[in-house]
């Protein structure tokens, strides 16, 4: 895989389409992410960000389309190939998704214990190095239930990067955090890109965070790509959806009074 990182995109998505109960939730999504790029996926609530995120990780199966990771097919792929490819990605979930029955350090060591033959002490040192990087050294023996939201995200990030993957996926790094903690997490993401040459794909709705870290931003709405460019270029676009999402225009809806009344009383007896 390291050979392929120098050539071609780190992540290539072509014609990704997904449907649930007959409704398209992702419609012909195509984009590429260059190596060492911080690529931010933005969208309003319900736009399809999380659905796209899960498809990129192979957690959901699309109805059509292809996903390549460093030139190798993530979809379609056999279960064995999927697991082999996943050894080269790091994933940080919105709420950390730490295993509740393990301490923080045990969580971070888990991928090393499962995928390497390193001795216990080496694994412990590597785990502690990642905790130091995330400023969580004091929380080594804490259980996940004892951590704050920001600490959970940082611990989840430490576990995601413990194998030094070439690509990191991060779901909502800033969600629910105070500005100082969110800023700290953004600095960590930049450091991971600059010091470890990681390609980073982030799903977020936080504009401030995207402005600080993104090389390019893709905006999705109703399961389709609405815009894809640098944030500066996007700010100049006239598209209503993009303008609303980037905060230049308030969201406006025309309300049909009769239709609204019908909806509110649809299941009432006459």
């Amino acid at each position: 895989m390291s050979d392929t990182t120098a050539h071609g995109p780190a992540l290539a998505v072509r014609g990704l389409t997904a449907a649930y109960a007959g409704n398209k939730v992702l419609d012909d999504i195509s984009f590429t992410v260059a190596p060492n790029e911080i690529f931010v996926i933005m969208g309003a609530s319900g736009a399809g960000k999380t659905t796209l995120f899960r498809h990129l990780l192979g957690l959901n199966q699309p109805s059509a389309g292809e996903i390549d990771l460093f030139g190798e097919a993530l979809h379609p792929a056999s279960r064995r190939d999927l697991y082999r490819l996943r050894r080269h990605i790091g994933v940080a979930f919105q709420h950390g998704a730490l295993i509740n029955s393990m301490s923080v350090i045990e969580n971070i060591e888990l991928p090393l214990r499962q995928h390497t033959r390193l001795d216990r002490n080496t694994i412990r040192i590597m785990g502690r190095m990642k905790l130091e990087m995330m400023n969580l050294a004091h929380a080594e023996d804490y259980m996940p239930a004892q951590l704050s939201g920001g600490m959970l995200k940082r611990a989840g990030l430490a576990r995601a990067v413990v194998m030094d993957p070439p690509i990191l996926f991060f779901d909502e790094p800033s969600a629910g955090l105070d500005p100082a903690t969110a800023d700290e997490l953004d600095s960590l993401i930049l450091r991971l890109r600059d010091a470890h040459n990681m390609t980073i794909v982030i799903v977020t709705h936080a504009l401030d965070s995207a402005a600080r870290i993104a090389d390019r931003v893709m905006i999705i709405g109703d399961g389709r790509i609405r815009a894809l460019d640098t944030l500066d270029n996007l700010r100049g676009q006239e598209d209503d959806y993009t303008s609303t999402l980037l905060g230049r225009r308030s969201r406006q809806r025309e309300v049909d009074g009769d239709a609204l009344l019908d909806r509110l009383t649809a299941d009432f007896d006459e």
Partner: protein
Amino acid sequence: MIVARPHSRLLEPILGMGRAGLFLLLVLPHVVRPWRQCSISLRQLHFIGTRSLTVIAIAGGFVGMVVALQFHDTLVRFGAVGLLGAAVGLSLIRELAPVLTALIVIGRVGSSMCAEIGIMRSDNQIDALECMAIDPYAYLIAPRFIATLIAVPLLTALFNVIGIGGGWFVGVVLFGLSDGAYFGGMADSVLWRDIVMDMVKAVSFALIIVWITTAKGFLMHLARRPMFGAAGVSHATTDAVVAASIAVLFADYIISALML
């Protein structure tokens, strides 16, 4: 995702059985390679086996005592008190020990396994394992299968021994039957095939318990009306306990009918 969510109420039971069957097929290859997750299996064995010893011992003791009490009262009427040991031994070994052990394990361990796995599903912990290239069937489910398949037959054997001891206390100590009559009658009437039936039931019930309870938690998100969080986990756990208990009783009848 093993099978897409159903859109029809009629299809749900069929899809549910299909998903449970696929779940078992994906787990079994890891169960036959127990050394892969040896330390986790040992931890589960401690939880399922060692920590159930007290409740199984207490239940076994009281069940043996009450069975002896009931049979003594009946046998006295027919002048056949000498058969007390045989009656206690056969009823415990053939029927009561495997069934009651299974029901106790469902209540103490099955509910806990289902809830733990359901919470992991609900909090994306299982997705996180998949993303770390750790197969949840091998890492989470197979150790529970291995531990349950080892622990339940051993707990059943313990239930038998303590139940027979409870029967001895009532029959010999309280009602004055001789040790020889109690144990001799038992040794004469309990055959190897009764012990085999006891162990066949114990292993079958262990498989039913661990299969149903882990599958209910693991596949919680694929239910016809999926619920997550506390409500979803509690719903899945209740379902798992009820389904496993009924399945054990059904399997008990089938095995008895086939082996008697």
